[in-house]
């Protein structure tokens, strides 16, 4: 019983009293329930309120399908682009010293610090009909704003930092000695990247990709500005949800919203798993670095 009394002793010394702990934990749980669980559950509740039949009908309706398709296209283009860019930027920043490095790091963060609406407006300003390059684009019959390319551009912009942000600290912790060792052993730059660098960052990379993907599919503000909301043509899922909602088509709106909610849940599950693996990799890097 000595152990038990020790525990009691310690808890009295190092933690708040029981009532305070209960109060704080309770408050936190209440908050989570009110602001996260209830809304999430209500999405599915509203979507299914009039039965499964109507729910599925709302999802396979042509405009909804077109929104899903466009969302997938935007994600399929922007995520790989950001993956390549993110790896290249993180690699340059973490493994080399060069002038303007801190400027580059700040630039990468720009999409995080600027409102998505502003991001959208920037594209309108540049490539819109009245924009800088507008006349030239019209002349050559290239449509960007109020068309799919604009949506992809806006999505690329807002998801820009995810992969790079995730990789920079990881690669900095790992240093470049393993790459140097690979080179002394005769590996080419390409071999070094595929066999040494990439395996060392794969979990962090996947984590960044999952976050970028979630953002790409869920983005509203920037996409809204450049989309023009043409039904069946330039609507992504979030935009489609808004239109349906404004038309008081609640089943349709919530049915599409439930897709996004589902995406969020899947992302969360994947993220937790990858986070766990990435943490292990980062920990190993730190351990190696301090030895």
């Amino acid at each position: 019983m000595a152990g038990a009394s020790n525990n009691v002793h310690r808890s009295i010394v190092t933690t708040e009293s029981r009532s305070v702990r209960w109060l704080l934990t309770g408050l936190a749980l209440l908050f989570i329930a009110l602001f996260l669980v209830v809304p999430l559950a209500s999405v599915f509740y509203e979507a299914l309120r009039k039965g499964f039949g109507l729910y599925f009908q709302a999802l396979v309706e042509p405009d909804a399908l077109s929104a899903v398709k466009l969302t997938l296209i935007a994600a399929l283009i922007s995520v790989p682009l950001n993956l390549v860019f993110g790896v290249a930027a993180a690699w340059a920043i973490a493994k080399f010293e060069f002038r303007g490095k801190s400027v580059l790091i700040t630039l990468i963060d720009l999409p995080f610090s600027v409102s998505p609406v502003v991001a959208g407006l920037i594209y309108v300003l540049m490539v819109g009909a009245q924009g800088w390059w507008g006349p030239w684009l019209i002349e050559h019959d290239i449509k960007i704003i109020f068309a799919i390319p604009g949506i992809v551009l806006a999505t690329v912009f807002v998801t820009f930092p995810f992969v790079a942000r995730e990789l920079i600290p990881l690669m900095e912790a790992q240093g470049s000695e393993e790459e140097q060792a690979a080179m002394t052993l005769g590996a080419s730059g390409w071999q070094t990247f595929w066999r040494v660098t990439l395996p060392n960052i794969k979990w962090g990379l996947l984590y960044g990709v999952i976050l970028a993907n979630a953002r790409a599919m869920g983005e509203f503000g920037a996409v809204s500005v450049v989309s023009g909301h043409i039904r069946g043509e330039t609507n992504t899922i979030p935009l489609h949800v808004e239109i349906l909602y404004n038309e008081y088509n609640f089943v349709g709106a919530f049915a599409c919203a439930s897709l996004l909610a589902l995406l969020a849940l899947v992302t969360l599950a994947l993220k937790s798993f990858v986070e766990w693996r990435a943490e292990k990799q980062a920990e190993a890097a730190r351990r190696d670095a301090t030895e």
Partner: protein
Amino acid sequence: MRRGFNPSLLPPHPSQGNPMSIEIKNINKRFGDFTALDNLNLDIASGELLALLGPSGCGKTTLLRIIAGLETPDQGQILFHGEDATDTHVRERQVGFVFQHYALFRHMTVFENVAFGLRVRPKKTRPTEAVIKKKVHDLLGLVQLDWLADRYPAQLSGGQRQRIALARALAVEPRVLLLDEPFGALDTKVRKELRRWLRRLHDEMHITSVFVTHDQEEALEVADRVVVMNKGKIEQIGTPEQVYDTPETPFVYQFLGDVNLFHSRVHEGWAEIGGARIEAPNSPNETTATVYVRPHEIDLSRDASDSAIAGVITHIRLLGATVRLEVEVAGHEAVEVELTRERYQDGAWRVGDPVWLNPREARVYTAG
């Protein structure tokens, strides 16, 4: 217990009998305003085991990395076997580099780490899987760690990682082996064992090797020749005996072992320290001089003498086989004297005893 070294496990080595010489000519290297290597020249004979010895920050790693091609010199040339290799890429230099912190590939097993250099070869020269397997196991046998083939680097001890890093470097049959503080991160006992092992390995393979250390004992024990470096320059090159017995500069004298310093003036070929006269035949007359005397090169006597340094024993420390006495001398810092256990007992020295010190050996360096 670690098993003994077994030379019969050695793989045949193509560089055997054909080791490489390295010439380093007028190498300069700066980092910003800081001069890391200052017009450095060094010839490394083929097949020798050379130690780069010097204090932290003196440029040892930088020099080693320049030889490897991991760093480019601002000026100067590196010749491998008489051929200019200054612009040769690391990949083509065929050097084995063992990093201070091993730099093992953390996501690969020990086996894959050692096999790496063979697997990345171009298709034409890449050995078959069976050959790779045999070769890796031979090398793991050579470093006596065959039983660890399936482990990951994180699951190894420091000494084991060190030997795996060595095996990995040897797998590509390098023409030169470069080791950066190979035993730096290990405890004294393992380090002593490993450096003897490295020496035997070198005697078998005869591969031109350069290793960096800031441990003078390690350099003196293992190397054929020692290069003492300081502030990006070479102070002295020589066999361990040469640098230890006839240090050419005060720095080398001080860096290799403990030393007592006396400030003095040279007067007609003699430097005087507290009564003791030291011969300084080659020093210009009436110049300030510093006299260096090693603690074990001082005799103690109870007999007062005009030609000895008078002092009083203030501390006695027993260090295993030797005894260190600290002697207070008027007008000087405390002088350290080292005696063998027997001589200390014969003299029956006590703290507080007055003594007269007589340097048996000394070196005089005049200023400038």
